[in-house]
């Protein structure tokens, strides 16, 4: 009896092993020259079929390797630059661009408009304070407009932002305040925010979906840090207007770059992918799949975006060099002021 049982167990294990992951690796595409590896962050994505169509057209096989958030991505590329993880990178933003270039992670390019002749801008977006129109209408309170407004007593305990150390939009908002108040003034501003009941959440998801009142979960706070492109997604079913809006005088502009990796095994393929990212089909898809604005002026934006997601006319800006030189010091000072 016991023997029969163990036989059954063995048979079951062998049968299950048939569907194991190790045994079923697809054969590698015939030539290694036909494969190109795109290294990117967790938020990368394209609509169904786009990448397949590109593969078919170009004869390339594209492997997408996704490695954590933008900071993790760049730091991993720096650590592995002697044996790169792939051929082309997408998703290095302006807060990490200088580090990537200084460390020699990306190869020079002749593409016009490239940052330091190496990183090609692909898309951009504005990180802005968002407000819940419904909440303010119900309370009969005027909405804030500027960064300074947020420190006013009538907005006490109403703001939630993601952590600048652990979240990339959080860092962008810190940079917006540095751009607005300068090296000498930004810490005082944050101290005033803190005194006015600022809430720091871990990440954007947490802030928007748990703490924010307009994110669908009826959180307690009506002011949140999010994107200029967030409001269109709060148009209620059957409604015509979004229930939230972005404050365009509080924005920081994030730009995302792509580049061919130094030491790429397939630099030609990498260049083709880079051009694919700039093609109209991808540029048109970027708002839909990655919630960013395409760099190409000829790209078409979704209708809700042109209507409800205008860009800031004059966003705060800090040069990538400045960010790279000061990021750690700024974050340390920010932690000290805000987290304690």
């Amino acid at each position, binding site marked *: *009896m*016991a023997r*029969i*049982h*163990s036989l059954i167990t063995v048979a079951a*294990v062998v049968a299950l*092993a048939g*569907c*194991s*992951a*190790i045994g*079923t690796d697809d054969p590698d595409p015939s030539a290694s020259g036909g494969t190109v*590896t795109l290294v990117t962050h*967790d*938020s*990368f*994505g394209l609509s*169904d079929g786009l990448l397949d169509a590109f593969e078919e057209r170009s004869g390339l096989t594209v*492997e*997408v*390797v*996704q490695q*954590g958030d933008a*900071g*993790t991505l760049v730091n*991993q590329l*720096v*650590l*592995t630059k002697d*044996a790169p*993880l792939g051929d082309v990178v997408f998703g290095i933003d302006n807060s990490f661009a200088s*580090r990537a270039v200084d460390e020699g992670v990306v190869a020079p390019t002749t593409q016009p408009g490239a940052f330091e002749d190496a990183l090609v801008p692909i898309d951009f977006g504005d990180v802005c304070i968002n407000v819940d129109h419904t909440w303010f209408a119900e309370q009969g309170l005027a909405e804030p407009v500027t960064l300074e407004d947020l420190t006013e007593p009538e907005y006490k305990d109403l703001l939630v932002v993601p*952590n600048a*150390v*652990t979240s990339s939009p959080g860092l962008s908002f810190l940079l917006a305040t540095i751009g607005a108040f300068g090296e000498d003034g930004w810490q005082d501003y944050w101290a005033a925010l803190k005194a006015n009941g600022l*809430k720091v959440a*871990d*990440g*954007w*998801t947490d802030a*928007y*979906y*748990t*703490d924010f009142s307009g994110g*669908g*979960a*009826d*959180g*307690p706070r009506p002011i949140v840090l999010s*994107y200029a492109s967030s409001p269109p*997604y709060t148009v209620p*079913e*059957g409604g015509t207007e979004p229930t939230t809006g972005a404050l365009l005088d509080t924005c920081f502009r994030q730009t995302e770059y792509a580049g061919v990796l130094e030491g790429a095994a397939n630099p030609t393929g990498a260049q083709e992918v880079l051009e694919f990212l700039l093609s109209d089909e991808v540029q048109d898809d970027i708002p839909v*799949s990655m*919630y960013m604005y395409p760099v190409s002026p000829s790209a078409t934006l979704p209708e809700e975006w042109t209507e409800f997601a205008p860009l800031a006319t004059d966003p705060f800006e800090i040069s990538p060099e400045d960010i790279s030189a000061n990021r*750690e010091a700024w*974050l340390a000072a920010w*932690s000290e002021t805000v*987290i*304690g």
Partner: protein
Amino acid sequence: MSVLTPTRSDAPTAVGASGRARVAVFWSLAVAVPLVFLGVFFVWPVAVMIAKGFVVDGHLDLGGFADVFSRPRTWRIVGLTLAQATLGTVLSVLLGVPGAYVLYRHSFRGRSFLRAFVTVPFVLPTVVVGVAFRSLLVSGGPLGFLHLDGTFAAIVAALVFFNYAVVVRAVGGLWERLDPRAEQAARALGASPWKAFRTVTLPALTPAIASAASLAFLFCATAFGTVLVLGGLQFGTIETEIWVQTTQFLDLRAAAVLSVVQLVVVAGTLVVAGRSRSRREQALGLTLPSASVRPLRLRRPAGMPPGDGHALTLVATSVTALVVLLLALPLVNLVVRSLRTGDGWGLDHYTALGTTGGALTVTVWQATLNSLRIALDATLLALVVGGLVALVVSRRPRRAVGRRAVAGLDALFMLPLGVSAVTVGFGFLLSMHHPFGLPVDLRTSPLLVPIAQAVVAVPLVVRVVLPVLRAIDPRLREAAATLGARPGRVLRTVDLSIAARSLGLAVGFAFAASLGEFGATSFLARPDRPTLPVVIFRLIGRPGPDSYGMALAASVVLAVLTAGIVAACERLRAPGAGGEW
């Protein structure tokens, strides 16, 4: 190793010698295979990563220690890590032991469902649990009146949420096999039920409790997402600090120092746990679960006198009922939120699981299949490696050197639970390109993911199987040998057949750990086959309410899947045949 075969002196020498040789080869392999596995896939990557922080331009630079230790923040972080882990562990044990008693010593309707149910929190992605917890605690939420949002208490509560199952399963696994006659004898001699529990049962359970506590402590001490989501950086731990220093600041020097600190804390824990375990470990009268399990009765059975221990059962049952209720709250919240669509309710997010949500590289169902396949490989690997480790560690060599070596081996295989996933993940990236000069790039190979998960699952297998193996009465082996069984046969018929009984529990545990693993895996996830937790993480971080809803629905799928598999494994371990012991 030390099995004597006194009656075999008359056997032909050739057979005896070759038999002994075979046994020697077996034991050498049993030690060597796990060591090589751990060495290549854990020790080496971690060493490479830590060395990167200490070796600057070819010179050893230990200045990082002075630097990091002079920051007051470092000391606060070490203190917070210890405080969180200690509180989380103590509470998990205090609540988990009554849970083990109710769920493994009693039979009642729905018991297998409850056993599987309490395991669910253990595998849920922390980011999802964070959302489920915080939306309960946030002011205006169902539990907002407790004012726990963003507090130390909320973090400890979440740690207990994750680790309750660890204690219940590890302790329950031994308890249900404990021969009740010892306790009955104590009662017959006049001991009160509480005294009988304290003096007979509790000492017998101590090794399993120490085992479970050390696991829980390691899980708590390396908790990452829970701490960040629920408490933020003001309650930062060594683990969160390593993550910040490595992935955001690229300060490898500070990260390396913190990794060493983490190793010291973990090693200290293991030494303490090992001591309290071995002092108590003894051969126990084990029995079949069916012999020790009684039906759960809330009303005192007719004819039973007062003072029969019914009060203890009632207390344990109420505590367990309360805990189950508390575990259910965030889970129910998760299910409710996954059903919320635009303006109403519906299954839209579940239907969407068949799609890529517009931007994933695979559909959620494909990711689920990937997870299952990878978990299968990881579980098989963990069973082989962990089984061998447990077998070796269960021996009690006569010489002190041997005993120390065995204890060291035991502790060594626990380390993967106590070392930062970031250190391991980055270590893989640094060490697995052409490892040992071999012309392969393992960094993005499909092989590495199940291996990385197995490294984490091995200690779980060891901790579940070991208490059972150690409790085997040595006389059983001697008896088998006396009856003429060769060493190999003794091993097969005594050790392996008894260990196989705890296999179902170990398989379930390893499978669950692998399914939920989201540490090192997130750094390795193969391009074309991300796992379910990785996909959930990507979905939940994307703007747009549909991705968020999909992430919650996918988490419910992960929870149901885990519960189903754990329940199935529980059945696997109760074979009708048997009774050899």
